[in-house]
């Protein structure tokens, strides 16, 4: 008598997998109560599969169901196929895997490490990447502190300022990583703190670069690139959110994108609400203008003749 373990997975992975152990050489799977394994799925037939242990593996028969059975990308209806232990068989919306009690389980380490498809690119996991990224961010802060100096240059002051900025930045990254690690712990029983932290630091560095580039572009083109700002920010937020979500949740791509778009919509909507509510007061009582006066790394744009500029005011 063999002990067969049937693993059932909810289509959206919203529930933890369910394991049913059955004694016997041959078992039936379906929605009906007379089956050895009962699958609560509306798209599964009353009797759906008949599974028999053979020496070559598991002989699986679809008993002529309405929706059929999907195995290795092929739909079977009333036919027999042979599956190996642990292979995915899709009936209705439920994934079924068949195991023998003698099969070895997946090593705990691999489970905790996650599957390859959900991981961040391997180069980012190299030991020096995280300190390297942090160092780049730190240099950026130092640069900012240095160019803000208008008194006698005291390096200790510059450093302390840079350290202040840097600590704030790292703290923000830590909080973000902690948040996502918690989500991961709850959703997939796995907290990839270090990976989330890498992503957070990387996103900060990249976004600082984008901000600088857009700032200069605005100045050199002598116009405000509001749409470019919104698009660049939204795109970056979307990318990094996608990454964090992939690591910490079992959601399908479609759902991840729905979630991201939803989040961006909420942000946009609240920004629009804030604008409508407060802008009248703000814009009436204080004028706002583009105040960039950038140093001449590049030649300054030639500018408009005075008369032309003044004519625009009166328009």
């Amino acid at each position, binding site marked *: 008598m063999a002990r067969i373990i049937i693993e059932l997975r909810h289509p959206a992975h919203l529930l933890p997998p369910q394991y049913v152990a059955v004694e016997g050489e041959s078992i039936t799977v379906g929605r009906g109560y007379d089956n050895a394994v009962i699958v609560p799925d509306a798209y599964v037939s009353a009797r759906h599969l008949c599974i028999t242990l053979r020496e070559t593996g598991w002989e699986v028969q679809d008993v002529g169901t309405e929706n059929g059975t999907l195995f290795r990308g092929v739909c079977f209806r009333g036919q027999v196929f042979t599956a190996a232990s642990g292979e995915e068989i899709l009936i209705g919306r439920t994934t079924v895997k068949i195991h023998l009690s003698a099969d070895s389980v997946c090593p705990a380490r691999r489970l905790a490490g996650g599957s390859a498809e959900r991981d961040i690119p391997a180069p980012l996991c190299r030991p020096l990447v995280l300190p390297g990224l942090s160092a780049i961010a730190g240099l950026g802060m130092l640069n900012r502190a240095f160019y*803000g100096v208008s008194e006698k240059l005291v390096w200790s002051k510059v450093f302390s300022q840079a350290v202040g900025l840097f600590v704030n930045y790292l703290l923000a990254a830590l909080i973000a990583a902690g948040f996502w690690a918690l989500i991961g712990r709850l959703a997939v029983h796995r907290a990839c703190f270090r990976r989330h932290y890498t992503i957070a630091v990387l996103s900060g560095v990249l976004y600082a670069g984008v901000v600088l580039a857009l700032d200069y572009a605005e100045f050199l083109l002598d116009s405000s690139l509001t749409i470019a700002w919104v698009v660049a920010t939204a795109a970056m937020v979307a990318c990094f959110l996608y990454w964090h979500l992939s690591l910490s949740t079992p959601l399908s791509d479609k759902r991840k994108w729905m979630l991201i778009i939803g989040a961006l919509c909420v942000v946009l909507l609240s920004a629009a609400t804030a604008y409508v509510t407060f802008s009248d007061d703000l814009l009436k009582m204080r004028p706002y203008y583009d105040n960039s006066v950038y*140093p001449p790394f590049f030649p300054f744009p030639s500018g408009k003749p005075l008369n032309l500029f003044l004519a625009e005011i*009166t328009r």
Partner: protein
Amino acid sequence: MPKLNVRIGLTAAAIGMVCALGWCRPVLAAATAPPESSQAERLFQRYKQSVYQVRVIDAATQEKKSVGFGFQFTPAGELATNFHVVSAAVHKPARYRVECLREDGTRESASIVYFNVVHDLAIIRLEQPQSEYIPLGNSELSKGAMLYCIGNPHDLGTAIVSGTFNGIVEKTLYRRILFSGSLNPGMSGGPALDSHGRVVGINVSTAGNEISFLVPVERLAEIYAELQTQPEHAQRSWDKLIEQQLVDNQNYFFQMISSAEWKHATIGDATVPGEISSFFKCWGDSQEEILYRWSVLRCDTDESVSVADDFYTGTMLYQYVWMESTGLNPMQFYSLVRRTFSSGFDDDFAFDNIGNRDDAQRFATRSGIVRSGNQKWKMAVSTRGYVKYAALCDAFIAMASLDNPRKALIVKMQLLGVQKKRLQEFLRKFMEQIQWPG
């Protein structure tokens, strides 16, 4: 300059402040020679039937919102007072009405007939006029002539204050008589009489310490003459009248500026417009920091036109900041320039000349890089239109020179109540006058 009408809630605070400053102490020098006091006594006896406390009464509480003073100057029952005393009733006739209180305590209602917002004068008419009135004189007196001002300081009771005539204030766009005597809140709109008992001026404002200002009586005569040619109030709106007066004022202002020879001032390497007209005053300062030096030059006018309690206009101000690096590298220098350029609007200018947001439209800002002469400038021009007086707007301008990585000139300007057309002309001329070789 503080105006002289008393407002509800402010009275107690103002009296408190006066006492705190030591003004409540007995003033020994006030003991005046007998002939003078008898003169004041005679004048007061003669005219006490012709002077009134002018009150703006709130319709909901039937209590006074603010008080000032007025005097009858025609047999037909026309009273002169300050525009700022009755401005609330002009702007919100449904909520406020004007009432006059005689020396003997009888109340009479009055209606606003005409005013000039720029000269801060208003003419109101009593419904049941008395026949006594004070004749108008002229303000061509010699310095030192005795003047007697009547009013009701801090709503304490009708008082007559003596002082001396000290000529017309210099460096102002509009003539104001400098009166050396104390005017206090509540005396606004009261008459200033010469020793023959003729009106010389109308009390308007004070700078404290016996420095007080009167509107010359000729202005009142002009406005009264103007009134004869105007249709009745029912046929036009006060807003239109105010707008017309503000536009005329602005035209006069810019005519004075453009006709005058502009004096130049030097700041750093640059030559810039300095006191561009006789009514501008300039102030300068400079400092040596460790890695750079700066100097600042600020020119402004004392003129302002009070349209309502929380709305003044008609002032102009421009400020230059010159910065020169002695040890900063170009990036540090530009970073400093940027901070000065962008902080300017908030630090140097008040945007509270319009207290009620419904009176102003939103700011519209244009910024960009502008070529003028041999320099490139980053320039930002913010304007906000007036809601009720659509021809006019407030303009705030900031600009910073870009070309030199070691030296920079930052200019900021504020022009309240201008037409955009005038603004454009003025800015063009102004920019042309900034000379900076290299």
